[in-house]
Every structure is written in structure tokens, then in C-alpha cells.
């Protein structure tokens, strides 16, 4: 920089400093966290205007829309100074706030909240989306989730659930210590205890299924009196991306055995001779699906293996357990597993005609050339395929109790 005088240098430096100062004043579009409504849960129900909305409408608040969807937003609300909307119980105590809007475009509905609340809603921390099964029977998942997949605030790891009742109910909790969305999000972590809970389906996974026009299951939620329970699964058909029916808990167990990705759980069976309870606890489960193609005839062979522990038995009180007894427990448990598989398969293959257990994926891996031809009407072909299954359970330990 030899050719510049010290004056020039000084001028340059002072300009630079003042420019830097201008640039350092912080975020351009900041939003203070106290001024935002953080939404953590979202429920979609069939359009049914709340009494509050009806009153607003009477006063002339309407705009052009079809009442297709009722959109319930759960907002974390610690300060609780603004109590607009349909807060069911007495205000002030609950850590959350549920507000509902009815209309058609989800995005318009979300923005509609701005006309009712002083703090804008942000979706960065949205954890769960719950969709009512009856709504999903009419509207495809593509339409219901498009906005959420497009929005740059909502993360694709947000989980999607189905509810057989009103999702509004699933987003409520008894007492005032839990935020219902967080409770549901947390319950998904219990998959190592029972395989009645499906592996989590995040938005991005649902999108992959939608794009592939594949069928899939979503965890079903039951809600009663502010309590919730994961129970069974909602089945979405690939071609329409609409709800076709539900698997109850036993049928879901059967399908889960075929998928073989459970981390733990119980098989409760009854001893052949004494009709007393024997319980097998799953330590590991594996399933292998093999596809066969003879001419145009597609068939599958499912091999299921599991290691486990004898966790409870009401048969041999205080007596020695011999190898024969363990064998009989294994057989009883195997029989029980086969029973649930039969129930589950029957439902998904014959009744709903939707492949939600990954048979198509295996077929595409083992017969990629053929898959390209059949993938468009796979669900139909799947319903005609011959499926055989073989279950091997092995008891490898007896718990803390010795054989005596």
C-alpha cells in the first residue's frame, strides 16, 4: 500500500469503521421470542365451525371459503395474557393454548390467526401433526400436507399421526402439567418397550411415500377425557393417498412382526395344557421377506426369528422347568404370533389391498426389472400374492429366577 498517503489511509479506515458499525447493528428481521406464538402441535379435523367462529360470522366476519377443514393449533403459552379462541377449561393455568379455525386453504387459515391474536404464530418448533381419519378418507395426504412441506419454518422431522376421534381432543390434556404435543412426541420413544407403537413417521418420510405412491401406516391416537393412547394404525392407500381403514392393536402386531423392526415387546400366550399365561419378552426380532416370481405369479416367503426371555409364567409354580416346558412355551408363543400375523395379513392383503409391510420393496430389490412393470398396480397384485410365513422364537434366558 506504499502508494497511498497516510491521510488517504486514515480516510479509508474511518469510512470502513463507520460502515462496519452500520452493519453490526444486528438482525434485520428479528422477532423477539416473547412476541411470538410458538406452535408445537397441529390438528386437522373435518370442517365444523366452532361456536366462537359462528358468533364472529354472525357479526359479519365471513370471507369466501368452503368449510372443509378445521385447523387446530397448539401454542405454547406461558405468559397467558392473551386468551383468545376456544380455551376449553379455565384460563391461566394451562401451559398451552388451542385455537381453531375453519376453512379450506391451510395457509390462509394459519394466517387467519393473525386477525385474532396479537402475537404471530411461528412453526419452527412444530412437533406433531395429527390428522383426523374421516377427514383423510375424503382428502388426500398430498393436499393436507402440502403447506407443511413447503413452509420453510416447519422442519421435515415433525411427526405425522392419525386420530380416530377429533384431533382437538388428542391435543388436550387433563390437568395443567403437560403440553399434549410434547406428550405425544415423547410417547414415540417407547418403541423399545412395545411394538404396538409404530416407528415414527416424519413429514419427510410421508413425502417419500406420497411421491412413490406407496401405501403406508400411520400411528393412530385415541383420546378420551384428556388422556391419549396409541392404538393400532391407520392405513393409507398408495394410489389415492387416502385413509382406507384401521388396523387394531392385534392386527398391527401381526404386521409389525412381518416388518421385523420392533425393538422390544411382549408376546402373551396360553399354555397348551393348563391354559395358564406364559409371557415371552422380545429381545430381538428379525424378519426376512423373500419374493418368488413364477411366470406372472408372485409369491412371498416370510421368515421371522426372534430371541427372547421367559418373563412370566403361571404354569410351573415353584417347580423345575425342564427343556420340554421351555419348548412348549416357545411353541405357544409361536402360535400366538402366527395368529396375529394371520389377522394382520388378512386385513392389509385381502380387505384393504394395501401393501404397508414392505413386500413391494423386497420385490423391487429382488426382481428390479419386473418391478418396473408391476409397480403401478402393485397393491392389486399384492392382494393376490401367495404369502407363506414361518415363525421361530427362541427363549434364551429365564430372567432372574432360576429354574427351581
Amino acid at each position, binding site marked *: 500500500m506504499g502508494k497511498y498517503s497516510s491521510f488517504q489511509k486514515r480516510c479509508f479506515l474511518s469510512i470502513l469503521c463507520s460502515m462496519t458499525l452500520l*452493519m453490526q447493528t444486528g*438482525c*434485520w*428481521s428479528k422477532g423477539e421470542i416473547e412476541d411470538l406464538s410458538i406452535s408445537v402441535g397441529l390438528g386437522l379435523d373435518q370442517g365444523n365451525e366452532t361456536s366462537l367462529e359462528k358468533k364472529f360470522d354472525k357479526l359479519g366476519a365471513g370471507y369466501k371459503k368452503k368449510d372443509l377443514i378445521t385447523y387446530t393449533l397448539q401454542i405454547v403459552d406461558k405468559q397467558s395474557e392473551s386468551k383468545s379462541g376456544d380455551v376449553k377449561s379455565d384460563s391461566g393455568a394451562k401451559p398451552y393454548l388451542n385455537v381453531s379455525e375453519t376453512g379450506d386453504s391451510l395457509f390462509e387459515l394459519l394466517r387467519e390467526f393473525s386477525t385474532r391474536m396479537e402475537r404471530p404464530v411461528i412453526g419452527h418448533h412444530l412437533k406433531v401433526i395429527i390428522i383426523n381419519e374421516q377427514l383423510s378418507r375424503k382428502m388426500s395426504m398430498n393436499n393436507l400436507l402440502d403447506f407443511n412441506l413447503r413452509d*420453510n419454518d416447519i*422442519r*421435515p*422431522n415433525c411427526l405425522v399421526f392419525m386420530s380416530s376421534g377429533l384431533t382437538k381432543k388428542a391435543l388436550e390434556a387433563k390437568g395443567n402439567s403437560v403440553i399434549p404435543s410434547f406428550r405425544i412426541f415423547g410417547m414415540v420413544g417407547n418403541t423399545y418397550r412395545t411394538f404396538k407403537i409404530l416407528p415414527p413417521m*416424519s413429514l*419427510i*418420510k410421508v*413425502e*417419500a*411415500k406420497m*411421491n*412413490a405412491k*406407496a401405501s403406508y401406516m400411520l400411528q393412530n391416537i385415541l383420546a378420551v377425557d384428556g388422556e391419549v393412547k396409541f392404538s393400532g394404525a391407520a392405513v393409507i392407500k398408495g394410489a389415492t393417498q387416502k385413509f382406507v381403514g384401521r388396523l387394531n392393536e392385534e392386527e398391527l402386531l401381526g404386521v409389525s412382526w412381518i416388518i421385523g423392526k420392533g425393538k422390544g415387546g411382549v408376546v402373551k400366550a396360553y399354555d397348551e395344557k393348563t391354559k395358564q399365561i406364559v409371557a415371552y419378552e422380545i429381545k430381538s426380532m428379525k424378519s426376512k421377506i423373500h419374493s418368488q416370481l413364477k411366470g406372472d405369479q408372485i409369491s412371498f416367503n416370510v421368515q421371522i426369528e426372534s430371541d427372547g426371555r421367559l418373563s412370566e409364567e403361571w404354569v410351573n409354580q415353584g417347580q423345575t422347568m425342564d427343556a420340554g416346558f421351555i419348548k412348549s412355551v416357545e411353541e405357544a408363543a409361536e402360535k400366538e404370533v402366527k395368529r396375529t400375523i394371520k389377522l394382520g395379513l388378512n386385513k392389509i392383503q385381502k380387505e384393504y389391498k394395501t401393501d404397508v409391510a*414392505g413386500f413391494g*420393496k423386497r420385490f*423391487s*430389490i*429382488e426382481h*428390479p*426389472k419386473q*418391478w*418396473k412393470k408391476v409397480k403401478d398396480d402393485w397393491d392389486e397384485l399384492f392382494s393376490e400374492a401367495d404369502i407363506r410365513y414361518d415363525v421361530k422364537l427362541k427363549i434364551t434366558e429365564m430372567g432372574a429366577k432360576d429354574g427351581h
Partner: protein
Amino acid sequence: MKSSFKDRITTIQTAVIISNFMLGSGILTLPRAAAEKVETPDIWLSVIIGGLVAIAAGIIMAVLSRSHAGKTVFQYNQVLLGKWIGGFLGLCFVVYFFTTSAYQLRAMAEVTGLFLLEGTPSWAIMMVFMWVSLYLMIGGINPIARLFEIILPLTIVIYLLVMFMSLRIFEWDNLRPFLGQGLMPVLAGVKSTSLSFLGVEVILVLTAFMNTPDKSIKAVVYGTAIPLLLYLLTVIVVIGGLSLEGVLTRAWPTLDLIRSYEFPGLIFERFESLLLVIWIMQIYSTFTITYFVAALGISQIFKVSIRKCLYILLPIVFIISTLPQNINVLFKLGDLLGQTALYLFLPIPILLLLLTKWRKRSNG
């Protein structure tokens, strides 16, 4: 303009510049761009082949530049082809590099505006970015190389971190069947994957600055190998995590992968901001080097000082980068740039190399 440069760069620095140039916006869009063409999970094979193609092209350019010691492509093609034709060809290169820098600038503004600074006007984001880059470029190639040497290892460490963490949603089945539809889809994707290795052409200019121009081939191979490994990892992890169908409709699939998991309890639960930070640094380096090369080209073709060119081009690059009306047009521009690069940097270096050999023989 002097034909030899005081500031020299080492072989490693050259490789680092090449790597930083490549790792631009491609890393966020590569899985989708390739998936659209390949349509099978074998995209990673296309990435390997694309990388090998890039290395081969790079070696040709390295050999060419090596045989014109101390001169950049803008200078020696005038020697080889005459003042007018050579000058015109040089201008083509300048336009390519310059448009690329405008493209990178805009891509940066798009992603930053969407995921980081929603509401901040894009001119504000771009201005700051351009000024910081100008400040670096005024210093010449050596400061550029030294800054890149800091950025690259940082990028690699953070990138590996976020990639390995996303293994929690990885599924092998998403990458199968292997070669289910044969080799043809893989080859169909090679063109789009080799485009993400654009950047190797900078060796045409960098060799002139090298301490040991004889090692230009080594620089090209090392410089391409690092992005090749990172791209390979990206494609495998992104397709394994999101599946082929999940990738196809996403604008920035790699970012979506990172947005698809969180680690409760860790200091950060969400890692996309980390990825965006290193990605912006990468865009910064791509912008800087393309802009610098374009300015250098103009200064050498028209024999004006590079400092003047650097200042004069600044408003122009800003205007060009604001031209695409939306992101689709931007992606189209990116494709167009890739096509142009295929024509500029595959046949022309080969011709120039043959011409060089022929001249040498007739002289000797």
C-alpha cells in the same frame, strides 16, 4: 500488466482452491439433480464416474497450462491463436467465470433468505457478501489461497459431523436394488454429476501462479478427490436417509436431510445452521475465485490493472445476479452454465494442447 506474479502459491494451496471452487451450491442440490436423471438408487456410481471424467479433463488442462510456464490461459491462447481469436476465446472464458460468480451470489442470497435471514432484503445480504469478498481479492491470489486453507478443513470437519449424525435416519433399503435397471440410468446421470465438479477449469489460470507448475496434475487430482469423496458421502447419506422419492421434489435435499433429525439434549439440537455456515463459506470461496479469475482475464486481455477491473465489475455482477426472476430460472441458469462449461473446457483445452505440441515440434 506484468506477466509473472510476485505472489506464488504452493501445490497444496492450488488443490485447496480447486476443492473450494467445486464445493459450491452443488452440494445442496446434487442429490436431486442427479436423482432426476438417474431414477434409480445407483446415483453414487454416477458421482464416481462424473468425478473421474472431471479428473481426466483436469489433467488435460493441467498439462496444457504446465507447458506455458508463468502464463494464464488468457495470455497463452493469444500467443497460440493470435490476438483476436485468442482474445475472443479469453472473453468467452471471462463471461463464463463471471456469470458463474453471479450465479453463486444469487444462490447464496436465495438460501440465506429462505432459511436464515427471512425478511432481510437480498441486496443487503449480497452487498455485505460482495464487499467482504472484494476486500480479500484486492490482496491478490496469496491471501485468497491462505483464507481458503482455513475454510476447507473447517468445512470438511463440520460437514462430516452433520453427515454422520444423519445416519440415525439412514436405511440401506433406500439404496437398493443395486444396478436394478442396468448401467444405462447410471450413465444418464453422469452428465449432471460431472457438472458438480465444475471448478477444475481454474487450473488453466492457477498454474501460472504455482511455485512448481510441474505439479499441476497433482494439484488437480488432489483438488478433485476431496469433493469427490464428499459428494459420494452426500449422495449415499441423502438417498439412504430420504429415499429416492423423498429427494425428487425437494429444492435443497441435503439441507432437508439435516432438517429431518434433531438431537435432543445436545448443545445444539438442530444442525442445519451449522451446515449453512460452512456452505456460505464455500459459496464465498467459489464467488471469490470466479470473480477474481474473471477480473484477471479482463485485465490481461485489455491490459488494464486488475484492481480497476475488480471495482468496475462489482456492480455488474450484482445486476446479473438479480436477473433470474425466480429459483427455477436460477437453476436453469446453473444448467446453462454447466452446458457451456462442457463446450469450453472439454474440446478447447484439447485443441489448445494439440496446437501447443504442434508448435513445439515445428519450432524444435
